[in-house]
Structures are given as structure tokens and as C-alpha cells.
């Protein structure tokens, strides 16, 4: 791929208080790709996402989005640039209605195209339309995940980062979710997918990075990783 990366993470070092979590992590995502960041629980995947979107400040390293350095930028400004995360645990607003949740997804856009974008989200997730007046906290786990994704789409992002979207969902819903990611990519989005679920992630991803103990371990195309004896043995139990 000769195009310029839409997202570059270069030598990121990060942690919480006195506890270092990430050591010299680097990755690139090119426009239109689905890139998976894989690894077992506690390896620093969510920490990586949260430092990329400005929820926390990294100790060292740089984050470039769309050719600009966003390492020191605030979370709300980064949303405005078109980079959004769908966080682990969904983090929807339980005390607000489904429609209000979606409306707030467009908060940085100051209400532009809001009606059209809500309709677009309802086309992806017809179930949400049926429940648009319901409080988000009363939705099922799968519906809450749809709402979290829909809320992310409301910001008209160029790139979405999904943090463990399959967590707590039934296998059927997980399959639906992964299908949706392919659809979103077809519709022009770039996707970074953080997952513990290696097998399914590698089915839809173009490339993947495997993290171990907060460090880059293995990377390559999805096919290379699926064919790699190390990956198969360590993560796929084959």
C-alpha cells in the first residue's frame, strides 16, 4: 500500500500513575483498511486506544492522524477530526433515550446533518428505531452495543476504533457485528478493531498486530498470521 497512513502510532509509551502498560508500541493504519489489534486480556489494547484518542496523555511517542500530530490534543478535538472510539463496555448514556444518545453522538458537529445521520444509523440498526424513545439503560446488551456503534457513526468519523465489541455478546450477535464491520468499510470507513477473539477478527481484517505484555509482538497480513505456526499454537489452539 503506497498511500499515506491515516493513523500512525510511533513508539508509544503509556501507563497509569506508576504502572507502565505500553512499551514502544507502533502501528500504521491505511485508509479503507480493517486492522486488528489482538492479544490476550490485560495486554494493553484498551490503553492503546484510550491514549490514541486523547483520553489520557502518553509518556512518550507520537500519534499522527490524517498527517497531523494529535499526541497532545484533547479528546473532544480529536473527535472533531473524525477519529472516534466505540469503547469497551459501551459507555452509552443509560439515563437518556436512544434518540438522545444518538443526538449526543453528533455533539461536536453542533447538530449538522443530524436527522439524516440518525436515519442512516436506523438503516444499519432497525431495532434501534423501534426503541428510539426508550431509555438506553433498558436495552439488551446487544442493542446497547448497536447504540454505542450508532452513536460513534453520528460524529461522521473517517475512522472508528472498536474496543472489544464482541465482549458479552452471543456468538450469533458477534457474527452479525463482524459482518457489519465489513459493511462499514465498504461504505468508506477505516476501522481499527481491538479484540481477544483472534480467529474471527482475522477473518475480516486486512492486517493485524499482536501485542504481548504491552509490546509489539507479531504483525502482518491476516493471512500471514493465520498461517503462522506461532500464532496458531499460542492463540488459536491449533
Amino acid at each position, binding site marked *: 500500500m503506497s498511500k499515506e497512513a491515516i493513523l500512525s502510532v510511533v513508539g508509544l509509551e503509556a501507563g497509569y500513575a506508576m504502572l507502565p502498560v505500553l512499551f514502544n508500541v507502533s502501528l500504521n493504519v491505511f485508509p479503507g483498511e480493517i486492522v486488528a489489534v489482538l492479544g490476550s486480556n490485560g495486554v494493553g489494547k484498551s490503553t492503546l486506544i484510550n491514549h490514541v484518542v486523547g483520553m489520557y496523555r502518553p509518556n512518550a511517542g507520537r500519534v499522527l492522524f490524517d498527517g497531523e500530530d494529535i499526541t497532545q490534543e484533547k479528546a473532544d478535538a480529536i*473527535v472533531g477530526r473524525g477519529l472516534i472510539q466505540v469503547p469497551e463496555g459501551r459507555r452509552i448514556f443509560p439515563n*437518556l433515550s436512544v434518540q438522545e444518545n444518538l443526538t*449526543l453522538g453528533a*455533539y461536536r458537529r453542533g447538530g449538522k446533518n443530524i436527522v439524516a445521520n440518525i436515519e442512516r444509523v436506523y438503516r444499519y440498526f432497525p431495532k434501534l428505531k423501534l426503541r428510539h424513545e426508550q431509555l438506553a439503560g433498558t436495552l439488551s446488551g446487544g442493542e446497547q452495543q448497536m447504540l454505542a456503534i450508532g452513536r460513534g457513526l453520528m*460524529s461522521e468519523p473517517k475512522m472508528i476504533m472498536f474496543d472489544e465489541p464482541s465482549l458479552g455478546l452471543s456468538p450469533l450477535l458477534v457474527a452479525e457485528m463482524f459482518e457489519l464491520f465489513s459493511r462499514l468499510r465498504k461504505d468508506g470507513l477505516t476501522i481499527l478493531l481491538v479484540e481477544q477473539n483472534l480467529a474471527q477478527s482475522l477473518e475480516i481484517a486486512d492486517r493485524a498486530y499482536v501485542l504481548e505484555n504491552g509490546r509489539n509482538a507479531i504483525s502482518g497480513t491476516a493471512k500471514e498470521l493465520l498461517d503462522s505456526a506461532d500464532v496458531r499454537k499460542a492463540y488459536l489452539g491449533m
Partner: protein
Amino acid sequence: MLSLEILLHSVVTGLMNGAVYALVAMGLTLIFGVLHIINFAHGSLLMVAMYGVFFAVTLLGIDPYVTIPFMMVLMYFAGYGLQRYVIGNAGQGRDTNILLITLGAAVVMDNLALYLWTGDTRQLQLDYMMAVVDLGFALIPVTRIIAFVAACALFVAMWLVIERTDFGRAMRAVAKEPFGARVVGIDVDRVYAQTMGIGTACLGAAAALLLPIFYVNPQIGNVFVLLAFTIVVLGSMGNIVGALVGGLLVGLVESVGGFFLGDRLGQVGIFVIFILILTFRPQGLFSARV
């Protein structure tokens, strides 16, 4: 029957006082609901606002009700600054720090007021303060009617802001899910400061409405903040409709209690209710919701 008339009179007076109590409590409950802060400085900020109105009237010759918009703006910035530059910085997100900062701010303000303006109790002298309106069953001072109507109007305005505007939605989102709010690009620290500002602006209005029917001295904040805390717990912490209902109820109980027990014991009823609520329904009459 004379006594029925007096009872009706005290019911009306109670509701009118209650609306202003509700305004003070609404600020407190809003701050608690969104920032999860017990703001001990609330009463002192009210006291400062009341002095502000007092001097605007006595030194500048402005009508107290005309000061409302100015006082609201001034108090908004006082609250905004308090959160952004004092609590936000020094609190470091720890409840104990924040508690002590608001308590400390209250002590500083109370003593500064004592130093600058002495402990004298001051009252406004305005020609329309003696005017009454005949409601048919009761003669009510104009000043109380203005306070009641203005407090209710402000309450409705606040409710509309919270329920219908983008800012209100952001405030409710931040109240329950600050992380998710940052994810969608809401500047949470700013919303905290704005909420503190709005909660404090309520005091600017309350001060202007209270001064013509009350008095001001450096301890006046305590009188109202105690009532406000009772109302906030009564109406479920963080629930602004609860603050209105709680405020009216407290005003009513105080006034009718005064009718039966005498002025000195009028407030006993409030605290009896408070204790009953804490014992049997500690979550308050409503559910907590900003």
C-alpha cells in the same frame, strides 16, 4: 372563620417561600447531580449574592428585581471560576479534597463578609415593600408574589434547558457517564464548570428575590443552605423536579407548622420530615435524575 383564613394565609405564604427555597435547592441539586459534589459553599455564595443585591440597591439605586439578570451572570462566572480554577485544580478528583475546598471557601467568604460588612443585619427599605395584593382569602405582599412567580418561571426555564437543549443533554450525559461523554467529544471539565455556574446563577436570582422579603447578614447562608440540603434529600439528590416539590413542601410545612406551633417551632416539622425520610425512604420521594 378567622382561624381558617389564617391557615389559608399561611398555606399561601408557605408555598411562596417554598418556591424561593426550591430555587436555592435547585442549584444545589443540579451541582450534586452532575458533579457529585456536596457544595458547602452554596449558602455562602447566596450570602455574597444577597450583599451584591443590597449594595446595588443602596449604593447604585437599582431596583432589586432589575439586578436579577446581572446577578445571575455575575454568579454564573463566580461558580464557573470556582469549579474551573479552584475545585477542578486543587480537588484532583478526590471527594475529601473537594469537600474541604467547598467548606474552606465557605469559611473564607463568611469571614470576609464579616470583616468587610460587619455582623450587622441589613434590610432594604423600598416603598413598594408594604404593598399587598388581595387574593380574596388572603392579603399577600407584592414582594412575595413576585418572588413566587419569578422563581417558578426560572424553574421552568431551567427544566427546558435541561430537557430540551444540547447543553442539557450533555449535562445529563456527564452526570451518569462522564467517560462516555468524553468519547463523543464533550469537554467534561467545561460542562462541570458550566453546571457549577448555572447552579450558582440560581443563587443570584434567589438573592434578588429574597432580599425584599428577608434580610442579610454574614450568617444568612446557613439558614438557607440547611433548608436547601433538606429539600435536596427530600426531592431525591440530583432531581430538579424533586427540588421544586421538596421546596414547596418544606415552605408549606414551615409556614403551617408555624401556624400551629408558633414561629419559633415552625421549622421543627421540616426536620421531623427529614428524619422520617432518612429512616423510611433514604432515596428521597423521587428517583435521582438530573
